[in-house]
């Protein structure tokens, strides 16, 4: 079984410029001086190491989302968003273990989903006396790397729906998103399902991770409604500045840093010179797409609003990162800058636009992850000859439709059962006091503790 879905993944990987196993094998068969090559076991270790490094970098992105969101919500909701972020990361891992991973990767075989059940690693071939390293990497390293991706998708939702969604239904939705929605659509492409058969190309998840989070957030935001006071009597959006821009900036830097793991380790192999060259290009492109995003947002907000907007620039960096994620390997550095810049420009316009549609997205996550993700996915054929625009569009639409339908069903069930929205009083005093019974900064501006001498 394991073999089977490894084949699946193998097939996908072959779409990429430098397929790991492929190269190792060819190195073995080639007449080239044998000594020069990477040994099979060494390649196995390299590939595993790549997943582990990539995995801890992406895990760290959970902290980035947490800080970004904590900085962009108002003080009265900061503790609550921190709790949501650490909880969703935890729940995502547990759900992915319980059902997600196998649903996504086990026996999809060109179809729509995999098997149901717990996951456990099987490295017996590599551990056998006559070590067979053709699996290419340790099973748990791959699991770890895939798991942290799920959490990323869930993080996107918390930011959009902050300040008014109730904790428990939010966490239940997180479990459904990470245990069911994400793995099923993930199976379609990365699991070797029908989209992968069609030739859909999404290297590290502009669509599979970011848009998925974005669609779920969009659906949730519409069903949940805007925050109290977000729109004035004339329906014009009112700005509700976040509590701490340095925390938001820190969060953005954390995400940027983690993204090297996100995109770089999505090469899925490090065990050959060709793979290491590919990953190097991915690192450079990932960085430069974000850089392009920052500079574009800087210039555009200066032109449009007369003042440079810091939070838009942060969103611009993230938009650049999301945009390059679908194809971080084939663009040249110059192309990467352009792809990131366009992503950022789209976000600069999308944020006020979505705001005016009365969809209240607290941190701009829909614009960044959904708009940026769609753009990135559709841009793949520009630099990657193997991808077709039509297939890309089919993938975007199919996954979008699937996520919207399931999210709508789940949110509506939650809404009409336990309710998803804080009541007016709770929202007014803030989710921190209402849900957690404490404040994020208990000494400032509230509570009596600052005054106590002790």
């Amino acid at each position, binding site marked *: 079984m394991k073999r089977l879905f490894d084949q699946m993944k193998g097939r996908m990987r072959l779409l990429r410029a430098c397929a790991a196993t492929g190269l190792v094998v060819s190195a073995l068969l080639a007449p080239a001086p044998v000594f020069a090559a990477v040994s099979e076991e060494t390649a196995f270790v390299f590939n595993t190491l790549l997943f582990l490094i990539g995995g801890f970098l992406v895990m760290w992105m959970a902290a980035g989302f947490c800080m970004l969101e904590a900085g962009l919500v108002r003080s009265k909701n900061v503790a609550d968003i921190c709790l949501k972020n650490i909880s969703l990361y935890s729940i995502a891992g547990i759900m992915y273990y319980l059902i997600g991973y196998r649903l996504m990767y086990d026996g999809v075989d060109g179809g729509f989903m995999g098997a149901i059940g717990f996951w456990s690693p099987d490295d017996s071939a590599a551990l056998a006396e006559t070590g067979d390293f053709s699996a290419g990497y340790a099973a748990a390293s791959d699991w770890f790397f895939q798991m942290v991706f799920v959490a990323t998708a869930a993080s996107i939702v918390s930011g959009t729906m902050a300040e008014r969604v109730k904790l428990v239904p939010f966490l239940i939705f997180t479990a459904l998103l990470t245990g069911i929605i994400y793995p099923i659509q993930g199976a379609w492409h990365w699991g070797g399902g029908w989209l992968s058969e069609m030739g859909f190309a999404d290297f590290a998840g502009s669509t599979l991770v970011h848009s998925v989070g974005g669609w779920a957030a969009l659906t949730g935001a519409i069903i949940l409604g805007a925050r109290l006071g977000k729109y004035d009597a004339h329906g014009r959006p009112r700005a509700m500045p976040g509590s701490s821009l340095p925390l938001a900036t820190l969060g953005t830097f954390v995400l940027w840093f983690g993204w090297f793991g996100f995109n770089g380790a999505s090469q899925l192999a490090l065990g050959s010179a060709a793979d290491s060259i590919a990953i190097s290009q991915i690192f450079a492109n990932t960085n430069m797409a974000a850089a392009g995003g920052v500079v574009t947002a800087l210039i555009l907000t200066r032109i449009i609003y007369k003042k440079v907007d810091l939070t838009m620039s942060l969103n611009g960096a993230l938009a650049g990162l999301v945009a390059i994620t679908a194809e971080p390997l084939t663009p040249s550095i110059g192309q990467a800058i352009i792809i990131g810049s366009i992503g950022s420009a789209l976000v600069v316009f999308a944020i006020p636009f979505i705001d005016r549609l009365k969809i209240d997205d607290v941190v701009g996550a829909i614009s960044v992850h959904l708009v940026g993700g769609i753009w990135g996915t559709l841009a793949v054929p520009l630099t990657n000859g193997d991808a077709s625009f039509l297939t890309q569009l089919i993938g975007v639409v199919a996954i979008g439709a699937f996520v919207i339908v399931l999210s709508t069903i789940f949110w509506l069930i939650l809404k009409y059962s336990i309710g998803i929205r804080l009541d007016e009083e709770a929202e*007014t005093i803030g989710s921190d006091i209402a849900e957690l*019974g*404490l404040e994020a900064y208990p000494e400032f*501006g*509230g*509570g*009596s503790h600052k*005054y106590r001498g002790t």
Partner: protein
Amino acid sequence: MKMIIAIIRPSRLEAVKDSLSAIGVEGMTVSEVQGYGRQKGHTEIYRGAEYAISFVPKIKIETVVREAQMESAIEEIKKAAQTGKMGDGKIFVLPVEFAMRIRTEDSNEAAL
């Protein structure tokens, strides 16, 4: 001249400001305060230990008005700040003997 001191709920500030402004009260000074009164604070549990919040965040508005404006100002504040639940706050009136606008050195009613 009188100084009207109103202690109100933070959520009513915008409404009070707007209605005072509507009747021509052109200046006021606002500060964050902590109130203690019938609306009791509450006891929370934090890490398993009790945590008494005895003060409630309030807003204090101070505005010096002409004698003539006083009644209507009090009325407007009351209307805008009232929710009917405990903790709506208080209005106090204190005598003011002198006022000056620093910029122009105008005195008393001309200074407001």
